[in-house]
């Protein structure tokens, strides 16, 4: 099935190519478990494109950070492949006029879920993974220790278990048929609620434990499609000087407050910040908690309707209760 979709992807990319100057998609990585972004500038390379449950990267990250300001030659566009969740990042960028819709050709990929490598490794234990087979429901994991079978759901990313938008909300062309959203999706804010059930002291202790590991490598920031400040991030500037280079807890807390509050009312929960964290800190939870707040307080979810203005960039004189 994946090979069918892959050839459909190739065919649709070929069809679109005359209007494109660049196509961003996924290609095979150094082994079967890894994919890596590919930037195609020559139609001959279209065959490199792949589509499978390992295509984890949110390619929208390149859109605002690298290509928003560039203007196309001869009105040619930039093609970009997006999953359902990735498409919300694009919409969020459109909501803030950070990209122009007409600059992009969006190839939508209905997605049944992406495999979480960390979960796979956890399941295989110490044994090296030799290969993994994925079909509709099952995962067959072959390691030095033998073959193990798991339900697919067990190895999906956290975000996929509560996915409500398997189909891209915005696209120029769709590869494959639209999928029916899963009916057994976890509650959107299950994981946030789990933290909320802790006492205040326990929560502080939890975050002290997690954030203490932070190296301030800024990978979470760089992987975020909506962190558009890039190297002007106030975590690093001297003027104004919000943070020192001192590696202690207040500075680490402060950095994550900056990252999260800059995403309040904007984060589309693609989960990339958490995936790329080398210290496996659940940093996406902070943004999810803020999303829960903006939903409850201001009835807003980022990345759904391109016309809506993010709630902290506007006001309502008549609103009450705050």
């Amino acid at each position, binding site marked *: 099935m994946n090979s069918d979709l892959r050839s459909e992807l190739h065919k649709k990319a070929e069809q679109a190519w005359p209007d494109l100057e660049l196509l961003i998609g996924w290609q095979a990585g150094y082994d079967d478990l890894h994919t890596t972004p590919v930037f195609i500038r020559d139609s001959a390379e279209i065959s490199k494109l792949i589509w499978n449950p390992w295509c984890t990267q949110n390619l929208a990250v390149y859109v605002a950070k690298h290509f928003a*300001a560039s*203007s196309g030659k001869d009105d040619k566009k930039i093609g970009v492949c997006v999953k359902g969740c990735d498409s919300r990042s694009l919409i969020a960028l459109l909501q*803030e*006029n*950070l990209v122009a819709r007409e600059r992009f050709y969006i190839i939508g990929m209905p997605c049944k879920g992406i495999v979480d490598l960390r979960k796979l490794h956890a399941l295989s234990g110490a044994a090296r993974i030799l290969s993994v087979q994925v079909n509709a429901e099952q995962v067959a994991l072959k390691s030095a220790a033998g073959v193990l079978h798991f339900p697919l759901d067990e190895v999906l990313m956290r975000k996929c278990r509560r996915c409500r938008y398997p189909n891209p909300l915005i696209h120029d062309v769709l590869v494959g048929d639209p999928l029916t959203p899963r009916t057994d999706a976890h509650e959107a804010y299950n994981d946030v609620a789990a933290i909320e059930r802790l006492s205040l002291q326990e929560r502080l202790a939890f975050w002290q434990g997690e954030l203490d590991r932070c190296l301030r490598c800024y990978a979470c920031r760089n992987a975020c499609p909506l962190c*558009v*400040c*890039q190297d*002007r*991030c*106030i975590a690093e*500037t001297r*003027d*104004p*000087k*919000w943070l020192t280079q001192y590696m202690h807890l207040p500075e680490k807390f402060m950095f994550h407050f900056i990252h999260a509050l*800059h995403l309040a009312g904007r984060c589309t929960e693609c989960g990339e910040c958490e995936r790329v964290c080398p210290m496996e800190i659940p940093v996406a939870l902070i943004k999810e908690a803020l999303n829960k707040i903006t939903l409850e307080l201001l009835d807003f979810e980022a990345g759904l309707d391109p016309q809506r*203005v993010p709630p902290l*960039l*506007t006001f309502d004189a008549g609103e009450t209760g705050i």
Partner: protein
Amino acid sequence: MRIGVFVCQCGTNIASTVETEAVAREALQHPDVVYATSYMYTCSEPGQQQIQRAIQEENLQGVVVAACSPRMHEPTFRRAVEKAGLNRFMFEMANIREHVSWISNDRQANTRKAAELVHMAVAKLRFNHPLSPSRVAINKRVLVIGGGVAGIQAALDCAEGGLEVVLVERQPSIGGKMAKLDKTFPTIDCSSCILGPKMVDVAQKENIRLYACSEVESVAGYIGNFSVQIRRKATCVDWNLCTGCGLCMEKCPAKKVPDHFNEDLGNTRAIGIPFPQAIPKKATIDKEHCRQFTRGKCGVCKKICPVGAIDYEMEDEFISEDFGAIIVATGFDLFDHSSYGEYGGGRFPDVISGLQYERILSASGPFGGHIQRPSDGRQPRNIVFIACVGSRDASVDRPYCSGVCCMYIAKQAILTRDHLPDSNCYVFYMDIRSPGKNYDEFVRRAQEEYGVNYIRGRVGKIYPKNNHLIVQGADTLLGAQVEVEADLVVLATGVEASAGARELAEKLRISYDQYGFYMESHPKLRPVETNTAGVYLAGVCQGPKDIPSSVAQGSAAAAKVQALFSRDTIETSPQVALVNERACVACGKCIQVCPFGAIQWKELRGGIQKAEVLPSVCQGCGLCNATCPPKAVQLQHCTDNQILAEIDVLCA
């Protein structure tokens, strides 16, 4: 940076609960502080000299004064340090009086708090930079909104001073409410006889351009450089051609059109000039009643007009004009008494408003100046006036005093007794408010000379009986109920904010109170200024007042404009936002949130876009600064670094 700290004792105001010497001593511990002292009255002449001497002798680059609120003396000290050669923004104040010595008697805690506030001020000052104001040219044209007596006075005074004036009036004629009055208190001189010549002056002054039947559509810009769009509403008569001959009005077949100028007491035609003294004396079509519009055919006026001025196709026209200042004189409306169910709620034709009675009294009114009842034209014998209808009554959300009703009732009662010596006049009042030159004497004349019966008390009920109106009330002086069999009841309807006042305020960005009256800058000391520089107030739009006060405010507003325009340029505050272009990531969020449209795109070489603040438009609120993710926009004199420095003193 070499910093000097001056701790004021304010006599005993501060020194009695703060150890100022200790505060000064502790200040010397902070980095960059090279001089610290305490003094009896720092704001006094010797106190200021002490600062100036220290600047010179100690070579100070920055000064902190710990004293009263900066809202009190910041300008004083800024001037003082400037005289000694420092930039006025190399100065900070610590508020150790209003925020410390006056709110607690705990000497120890106060001293610690004062020392910390000084520390914060020093920490902030270390991030201060010299700032200098920029200057922008002033466009010396003035817009007056509203052509009542206040607006007329303001326009004439400005024009007299040689300024170019544009006067915008919503109605077809200027004159406002005063044009509807019969006589004025306390002199009983004819209203239109004193207002008329001023209206004519407006029409004749070459440097006043009058836009009647027009409204302000939008306002952009700032003091010295406002850009205003004016909507000229379609009158369906080409005013360049109309001679005001009135033929159209004579021949118009629509005869049952409520006469708004006469407060709907009579009828007029669907085309015409609102009243004989109208300025401009031009005809207007009332589309709501004109048969050409309601039935699609008629065309009588078009046929009859000798100059061919009628144009049914006319549409609203928009014009843009630039001004350096704006005077708002939009006046008021009368409270609608239909919310008083106990007075009939508008059901009884012979219970009328004060302004309706003015029209009845007026010789140019619906009954030619003969006092008669609207219902049957009968001459009334007993007339009851009820004060405070829509004033001083929280139950209708009008707790304020309208200020003029006591006087206009006295006037109307006197005029009634004059016209109809056999009549009986009764005034139900709560208190008599007559603080004005010859005002109280006037009310006394009504009572003593004209025999008007003043009854102190409220009226509880009015109901019709046998072609009379029974007025039931209390006489609180006698402690008894009274009933008057009246023929006519005049309600002294109060003053309320003009319809549309709030919308106009939003356009002008001036504030208004809960009742829609515009807010002056300071209730005592800046009565005609608003908090938006370059916008001034005159007349009742700012709050209820009588004609003399309205005229005085019109003149005052004109004087303010003249003072502003006596210079060619104005200084703009340098406490504005500034973009660090290298840090700007062109996300546009600052442009999106700026309440003043003060930030725009700027294109650098290579088509790179950056945000740019227009310093003359920026009001310095800092919303952009708070919004900017990379903090590329910094509000000068209140930068992130300055606030962070203050926080760090307290928390780090």
